[in-house]
């Protein structure tokens, strides 16, 4: 009986969220570049073992509709962790915020206030939040993933 409980806990990691129709999981990988003997660079995603400043990391969000009805107007938001410098979305359709999630838009349309009061175009490193708004409802059983990249400051 005890074993059964443990097993079910492992199978349903988000036991407290069991009533939710859609599940959302977050993963972090480290991009490792290795060089083949002929000098060609090979990039692999590894589970984070040793991570130091300057290391490129990839954030992966998995979503899945576990319910029986479509989930419409699905919006995923990920604040960029404080010690990470945003380095670009790998999944299309992202919107960005450079002011803590108050306003959103394409990165090229955003500006950042300079110390002297003037404004400059926002850079990737200014991004505080990233979000995706899915145009289509997630059908029952539908799943997908969203990726973005960062660098450890």
């Amino acid at each position, binding site marked *: 009986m005890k074993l059964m409980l443990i097993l079910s806990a492992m199978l349903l990691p988000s036991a407290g*969220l069991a009533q939710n129709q859609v599940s*959302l999981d*977050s993963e972090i990988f480290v991009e490792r570049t290795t060089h083949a003997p002929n000098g060609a660079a090979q990039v692999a995603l590894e589970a984070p073992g040793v991570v*130091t400043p*300057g290391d490129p990391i990839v954030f992966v969000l998995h979503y899945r509709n576990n319910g029986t009805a479509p989930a419409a107007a699905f919006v995923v938001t990920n604040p960029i962790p404080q010690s990470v410098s945003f380095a670009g979305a790998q999944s299309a359709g992202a919107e960005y915020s450079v002011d803590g999630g108050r306003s959103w838009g394409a990165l090229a349309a955003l500006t950042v206030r300079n110390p002297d009061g003037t404004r400059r175009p926002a850079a990737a490193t200014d991004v505080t939040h990233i979000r995706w708004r899915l145009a289509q409802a997630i059908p029952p059983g539908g799943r997908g993933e969203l990726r973005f990249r960062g660098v450890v*400051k």
Partner: protein
Amino acid sequence: MRDLKLMPTCGSAKRMAPRHWRFIKAAMLTAGSLHAAAPAAAARTPAGTVINNSASATYDLPGGGQDTITSNMVSLTVDELLDVGVAWTDGGDSVVTPGALSQVLTYRVTNAGNGSEAFRLTARDNAGGDDFDPVTTSIVLDGNGNGIYDPGLDIVYVPGGNDPVLAPDASVVAFVLSTIPAGAANGQRGRVDLVAVADTGSGAPGTSFAGQGQGGGDAVVGATGADAEDDGYYAAAAATVTFVKSATVADAFGGTAHVPGAIITYRLTATVSGAGSLANLRIADAIPPGSTFRTGSITLEGAGLTDNADADAGEFTGSGIAVRLGSVAAGSTRIVTFQVAID
């Protein structure tokens, strides 16, 4: 009789700037950067920092209303990067005389990693690429942070005993003290490399030391190999010259009053120190306003010289005197005298 010590006015005085002057300049340069050593904005994430990531999502429920979900929290701990930088900061060769003891070279050691780290220092005085090998006798840490070597105040470094512990981006000034070999010739250079190595470990970039990082993570060797060095140089100035000018006044009454007709005898002493010799040393001095040169009064080493520009070493130029000393060996002195009468 009285002696007046005057500043040298000799036109050809080949004087070396005092050697400590460069250290004063170096101290002024480094004093500012000591306080600016930890730029907060560009700082690397400190070792042991935990990066947490979690996303949230909203969607419309089939029966109306909206649901908000939160993902699991993923965490990773930033490990310690081992990196170090060494820079020779004298700004130019440290000018020394052959045989001199405790001659100083100044370096700055900077923790370029993201964790607090101790560094082992070594001075390599036989690295090659130079003309003579200084003999390093000690490394001293700038205990009072003024960038200048203060004997007795600064801290003598003992490898493994007081390895400087530096916070990320912090730095310490280290002085290398060496004896200059007596045989170093004029213009020759002697090189000393200061080497700093992270105590936790060093090696090829990417080498990791499990569990030895600050904050409980691993320690990983960074791009510098956690082992850095810079070369500093002494330059031997075998011979230097100093001038001293003095004057004695004799009036017509056997006294020393500055009255018209009193005779002033100027005495110019050139002392060459160090080793080797100085070539084409020449002394020149102007006749002071309000006085008149006394013809035939120039002497060199007690022997009279004619006033004309001729075969002997000295002459009166009309406005001053000039004496060519030729090549003068270190350790010797040349004395020139001449007289003027107060108008």
